């Protein structure tokens, strides 16, 4: 068994069991079989390549090709047969990628995801193999194995079980054990049988067990004792590792769209219910003197979870909405509240507290463009009677929606107190506020309003102008609800739009803001204080003779909501589809340029040693001031060329070295040119006079070209990229730096006089030389 065999057996063991660490991620273990098959095939390829005396780099290249071939053949299975494999592979991988991004662990079976998992296992196995075999650094294989371990650890964001850890450790030990056996064989190669037996594989086994067992126990025990990192530690790393996502303030889009002169269709949808639905983009839960703002959220991936405040489906029941977005760019996915599931393509995460669905992929600002997706949602349409008795609740994870800033202007507080005097139920207080805002002094206008939601702007709106648009109404009501002790937030999104056949059309002027209030047992409930745009939801209107509204039918939201007062476009807003390079394209081009620069830099880095070597040869063979110098340089060049071929430079005199080097040269070159060079070196070093060195250059050239031709280029490609002479020089330098100067020679060591009482001293010399 060769050393290569042992290394690849060890690496295969690590790869075969290492693939098991990904099992918690998926409910479909079928990715294991192709990866096992490929690991076996690649290991055999490495072993066979070694038998054929191929360069390691070539073997690795073949392995990579084999891995690619497997990915292709896996892609042959699913998909229509009449499409070429490359046309099938990319969509398959893409859908697999999307599948992985959108589903929670353990994810359901998907052919694309299966290929991706297979490739991850195989690639990390290959990296481990290259580290252990080609680069001869078995200890470094910890990195790919750890990567295999970290994938589920990061993706699950929970503790990965001990078995995964053990699997990685056992694989790592297998590689180290194989390397240990190799070192052992190397050192005991020439020893007789019984002396090798005392060490040998049994010794390595024992050492492995003695070292590994306590280490493993210590690692597991310490892991249980020490405080571990919280899974949320990874939160900021989650979206493609690009750091925290900066969430765009949706109010900016809102104002921009409403102020635009022409109304443009942004999306359309069909739904399984007779009524249209509000499509929510985002919520603003934080209130301060500057107005309403986003909070920091912890995003989650995978399927949407539970609806805050609602244990079971509400009376409104379930709604299926098929949304089609054409040219509307946002990082928030428009969805009816409360979304339960969605299938938009790309990377989407959600905030469990607000159920905002937020794009996390690259180019996320345009994530909604061209989307076709279906949202399944619950319609939160509370029963008026139940709502009127509901108590104020505390929404989980949204305590900021209860905070009442101390610096709220007193007039607003007084207004709220005045409106709610004698009203006990929170919902009725809210209804009173909504009724106040929809009453006479207030009028809808996009023009006169600032669009700001600061205390000053709201005070101006409430007490002076009484003119504003949805943002003012929504933020004023939410603020007032806060004062009354009801958790509130401002939602931004779209009105239901206009019905046309079975399709609902939503335009840019349908963009809207509304308050959401939280009640115990009811969850977040939508209110509609903006007059002239939409009719109030039935549960928010108090019947004249009743304390609370008890509508038997759900009122249809008004389709005349988008009646637009004389709003003019106040700024020249360029639509995203305008001519010229858009932001997205520019960023794509920028990425490509950066990639090209990085690629060129890596290429340059790879080529640097080779170029340095060429320059060194040229300068060495160039003219020298002193003939001795030129001889010395020529000899150095012969040495370095020899080292570049991957040979060891022999020890000894120039002649002895030439005997070894000459074996690799054609006979004529060895006899004439090489011996000429050697003779010049000897004369230069050991003679009084140096003969003419005119012919030296020619002889050196003949030797060097003979050496270069002695090995085909593909056998020494590694040494072309990383010349052996440079690594040799580096090693020599390192040895010089690290070795201490030799201790001074001691006098008594040099003249050892044998003592006369030594028995062998008195023995006749003849006797001692004969055996």
């Amino acid at each position: 068994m060769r050393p290569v065999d042992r290394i690849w057996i060890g690496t295969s063991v690590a790869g075969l069991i290492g693939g098991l660490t990904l099992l918690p991620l998926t409910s479909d273990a079928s990715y294991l079989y192709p990866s096992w098959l490929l690991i076996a095939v690649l290991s055999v390829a490495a072993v066979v390549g070694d038998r054929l005396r191929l360069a390691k780099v070539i073997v690795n290249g073949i392995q990579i090709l084999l891995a690619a071939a497997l990915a292709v053949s896996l892609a042959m299975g699913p998909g229509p047969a009449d499409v070429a494999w490359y046309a099938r592979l990319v969509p398959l991988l893409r859908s697999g990628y999307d599948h992985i991004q959108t589903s929670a662990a353990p994810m359901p079976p998907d052919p694309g995801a299966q290929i991706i998992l297979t490739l991850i296992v195989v690639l990390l196995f290959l990296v481990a193999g290259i580290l252990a075999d080609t680069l001869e650094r078995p200890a470094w294989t910890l990195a790919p194995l750890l990567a295999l371990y970290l994938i589920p650890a990061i993706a699950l964001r929970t503790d990965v079980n001990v078995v995964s850890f053990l699997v990685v450790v056992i694989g790592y030990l297998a590689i180290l054990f194989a390397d240990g056996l190799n070192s052992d064989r190397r050192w005991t190669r020439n020893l007789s049988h019984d002396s090798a037996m005392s060490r040998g594989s049994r010794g390595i086994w024992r050492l492995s067990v003695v070292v590994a067992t306590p280490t493993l126990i210590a690692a597991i025990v310490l892991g249980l004792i020490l405080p571990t990192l919280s899974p949320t530690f990874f939160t900021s790393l989650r979206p493609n590792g690009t750091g925290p996502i900066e969430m765009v303030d949706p109010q900016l889009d809102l104002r921009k769209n409403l102020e635009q002169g022409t109304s443009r269709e942004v999306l359309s949808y069909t739904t399984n219910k007779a009524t249209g639905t509000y499509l929510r983009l985002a919520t603003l839960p934080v209130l301060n003197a500057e107005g309403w703002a986003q909070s920091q959220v912890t995003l989650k991936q995978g399927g949407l979870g539970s609806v805050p405040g609602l244990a079971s489906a509400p009376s409104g029941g379930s709604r299926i909405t098929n949304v089609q977005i054409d040219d509307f760019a946002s990082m928030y996915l428009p969805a009816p509240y409360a979304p339960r599931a969605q299938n938009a393509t790309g990377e989407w995460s959600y905030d469990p507290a607000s159920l905002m669905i937020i794009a996390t992929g690259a180019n996320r600002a345009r994530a909604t463009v061209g989307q076709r997706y279906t949202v399944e949602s619950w319609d939160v349409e509370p029963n008026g009677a139940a709502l009127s008795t509901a108590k104020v609740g505390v929404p989980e994870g949204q305590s900021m929606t209860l905070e009442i800033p101390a610096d709220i202007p007193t007039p607003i507080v007084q207004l709220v107190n005045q409106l709610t005097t004698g009203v006990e139920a929170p919902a009725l207080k809210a209804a009173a506020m909504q009724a106040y805002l929809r009453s006479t002094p207030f009028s809808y206008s996009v023009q006169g309003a600032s669009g700001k939601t600061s205390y000053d702007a709201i005070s101006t709106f409430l007490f002076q102008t009484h003119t504003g648009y949805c943002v003012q109404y929504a933020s004023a009501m939410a603020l007032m609800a806060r004062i009354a002790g009801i958790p509130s937030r401002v939602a931004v999104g779209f009105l239901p739009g206009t019905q046309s056949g079975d399709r609902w059309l939503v335009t840019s002027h349908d963009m809207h803001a509304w308050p959401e209030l939280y009640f115990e047992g009811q969850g977040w409930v939508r209110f509609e204080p903006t007059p002239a745009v939409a009719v109030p939801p039935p549960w928010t209107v108090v019947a004249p003779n009743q304390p609370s509204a008890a509508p038997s039918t759900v009122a249809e939201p008004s389709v005349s909501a988008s009646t637009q007062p004389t709003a003019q476009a106040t700024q020249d807003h360029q639509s995203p589809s305008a001519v010229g390079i858009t932001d997205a394209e520019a960023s794509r081009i920028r990425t490509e340029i950066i990639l090209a620069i990085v690629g060129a830099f890596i290429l340059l880095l790879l080529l640097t040693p080779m170029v340095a070597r060429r320059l060194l040869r040229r300068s060495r063979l160039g003219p020298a001031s002193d003939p001795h110098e030129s001889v010395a340089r020529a000899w150095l060049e012969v040495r370095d060329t020899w080292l570049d071929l991957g040979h060891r430079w022999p020890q000894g005199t120039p002649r002895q070295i030439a005997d070894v080097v000459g074996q690799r040269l054609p006979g004529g070159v060895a006899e004439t040119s090489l011996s000429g060079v050697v003779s010049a070196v000897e004369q230069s070093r050991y003679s009084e006079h140096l003969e003419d060195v005119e012919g030296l250059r020619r002889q050196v050239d003949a030797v060097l070209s003979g050496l270069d031709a002695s090995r085909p280029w593909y056998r020494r490609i590694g040494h072309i990229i990383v010349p052996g002479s440079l690594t040799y020089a580096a090693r020599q330098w390192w040895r010089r730096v690290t070795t201490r100067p030799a201790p001074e020679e001691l006098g008594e060591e040099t003249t050892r006089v044998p003592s006369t009482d030594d028995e062998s001293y008195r023995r006749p010399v003849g006797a001692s030389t004969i055996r």
Partner: protein
Amino acid sequence: MVGSVIEKRSLGDVLDIMGTVRSAIEGVIEGKRGSIDMAMVVLLAEGHLLLEDVPGVGKTMLAKALGRSIASTVRRIQFTPDLLPSDVTGVSVYNQGTGAFEFKPGGIFANIVVGDEINRASPKTQSAMLESMEERQVTVDGVTHKLATPFMVIATQNPIEMEGTYPLPEAQRDRFMARIEMGYPTVAAEIEMLDNHGSSDPLAALRPVTDADTIHSLILAVRGVYVAPAVKKYLIDIVTATRQSRDLRLGASPRASLQLLRAGRAKAALSGRDYVLPDDIADLAVNVLAHRTLPSTEAQLSRRSVAEIITKAVQSVPVPDKR
């Protein structure tokens, strides 16, 4: 003895003349080029040669052939236990005719002296012989007699028969520049030997190709071979390595350094070079140093030969790669 003016010769002559000597000897002894070259190195380096091997491998033949190929005086002394020092050095005899003591030169008065089975003579005789080897003169009854130039002793020693022998002490062995072991010939060389020597004595057919004066002039030329300081340092490093080796109880002496240097010069000249290479020193190290050193008990027990130990010491010394 040599009164004539010595002609000055160049190193090119060394190559030519010794080439003819070598081919003359090779006509007598087949397939022993290494031993022949070593003998010529010792001759040109003004040293003495110790041939140590089993009987019948051509020790005496080599010595005789070297002597015959040079037109010079060759004497052979067969060492036996009853050999007296005066047999070697010579003796003053009363001449009744002249009425005075007259010096009768012993066997050592010759250019090339073949001392056969030197370890059979008594220590007294051995030391008389070895003293004159070193001094290159003989003092009898207060009169000093100079020995011939060139003067070379080729002593043979049989390591097998130990009965009734007096092994040379270290100090005596130190006087020999080099020791060589002839070894058995190859099959081809032995067949050739059977063909050639079966009918006639090849030694009888050997004619001198040069003379003692020429050899003397070549010796003077060899003294001018250049030794670079780096090579001298390399030589000293090797000798020092033998002194520091744990496997050797006794390392090489400063006299060994000197003789190694001389031998190196002769070897370089025989290769047609006027400068000494580290290769020359390394190649000669075993022949020049091995018989002067003693292995330690541990080395003997682990059956490592002195030649192996010295080869290891040579390999441990880095070759000088600077001027």
